[in-house]
């Protein structure tokens, strides 16, 4: 496929217009040609977005049930500098599996897992290499002991179905 054709395909596959106000819309976002990473998009999808679009991310899209663009496959967010910002994956328009966010120096900021677009599993946050939060989620609800570090002091709280456990 020629570069021009590839770019046109990407524009066509750009995400669905969003209505910000009744009778109003956000226009589809064209891909800006440039040094974008090449994602291993699944068969039937095509690479869309780009670090210089409103998404600040490159991802794969395919046609949804009504023909609307649907994210499906790897998702890679990049800083303007080209450094990795966030990485994860979509499955039929919903986030799935491990996702990791980075600062511009390459340090981890957050690590969590999605299942059917819900937080599901261990969720950890860091700031400048220091762990500040460790939670456990199941189907979008906190379950078990959650830990937080404030000024180096650990605070633990047990949750069940997103509520503190009654003793």
């Amino acid at each position: 496929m020629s570069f021009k054709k590839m770019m046109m395909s990407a524009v066509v596959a750009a995400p669905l217009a969003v209505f910000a106000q009744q009778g109003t819309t956000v226009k589809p976002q064209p891909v800006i040609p440039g040094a974008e990473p090449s994602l291993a998009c699944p068969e039937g999808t095509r690479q869309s977005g780009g670090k210089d679009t409103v998404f600040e991310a490159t991802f794969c899209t395919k046609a949804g049930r009504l023909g609307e663009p649907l994210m499906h496959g790897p998702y890679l967010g990049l800083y303007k500098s080209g450094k990795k910002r966030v990485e994860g994956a979509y499955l039929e328009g919903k986030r799935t599996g491990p996702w990791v966010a980075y600062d511009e120096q390459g340090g981890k900021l957050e690590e969590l897992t999605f299942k059917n677009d819900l937080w599901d599993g261990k969720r950890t946050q860091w700031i400048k290499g220091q762990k500040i939060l460790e939670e456990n989620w199941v189907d979008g609800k906190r379950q078990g002991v959650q830990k937080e570090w404030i000024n180096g002091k650990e605070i633990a709280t047990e949750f069940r179905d997103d509520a503190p456990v009654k003793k």
Partner: protein
Amino acid sequence: MMKKTSLWLVAATAAGFALGFAGCGETMPMPSTCTADSQCAASEACHPVLRRCVSACTAAVDCPDSAKTCATFGGLMAGNDAGVKAFCQCATDQLCERASAGQVCQPATKICGAKCSATEPCPSGSTCDMMTGKCGAATTTDGGTGDGGMTGDAGVGDCTPGSCTAPQVCDPTTRRCAAAVACSSANPQPDTCVYGLTCSGSACAEAPRTGVGCMNFTNLPTPTLWNPATVNPKGPVTVTFTSITKDTNMPLFCGARGADFSAEANLYAGNTNFPAMLDLLPANFLNYVRSDGQALDIKGGGGQTPLARPTGGYASGLSNNNKNLRLRFNLCVMGTAPATLSAGFYGENGNAVCSTLQ
């Protein structure tokens, strides 16, 4: 007024009740439960967590050295005219230890007590930090009203947001109208104010609920029913929602003309930190509400365009260990943009706000 010594004795007795419930086995006869001060003796207050009558105070001089803070449970000053009695509260473990070896200042009850453990449970609604032996601040849970946890179950006589007469506020902890406690808006929100309040200038105030009565929420009423005293889980609280200078740095937002409207929401986190990146937000966690009541997920995703720039609109606005967020997002209008736009905004399980953007 009761003599200081006798008040101390009452306080000690009340503390004994509290200890019996919060830290130790029930070794003393327990009084019947209370839900309001009126159910207790004249010299007593109804402890909102213990649901037991404890000794009331009117000033710090009434209290023992181990618990020298005379305040309502929500931290409101004693002597307010809201009809809520204050009681003696501890502030440090050192003072509790000095009064009785091994005791700590329990955050859940604000009373000196034995450390909690697997065999020494905490009061209902709070959890034991096994490392420190402390019971975390108690919370109430929604008994299930079918409203997605937004309103919870208010009791008879409980105040609700907006029901108190200024300058009083509805204290979400005691659910009573009370004078506002002091705070500093120079610190991250909500500073010393409890969940559901914001620090406005130098005093705690109820979080804005400008979404109530706003046309954007007419067809989306649930967020306007938010009650910080009962909502579970506690969602992000919007402190301010205003119009800001239009974003022209990203011409792709509304084509070459730049954003038609740009807004800024300042929030503090509820039960959990904000994620480090916009892309990690739960679905429908931060929402813009159109005038027809349709809510749009700020983060986009799936196939939708985000309304905020992931770095400049979201990540750069995180502060205070991801507990505070300054969110900036943009709106585009099809055709010619009007001079103003009525915009709604809310975080999941948070307060609903409206603003006229320019």
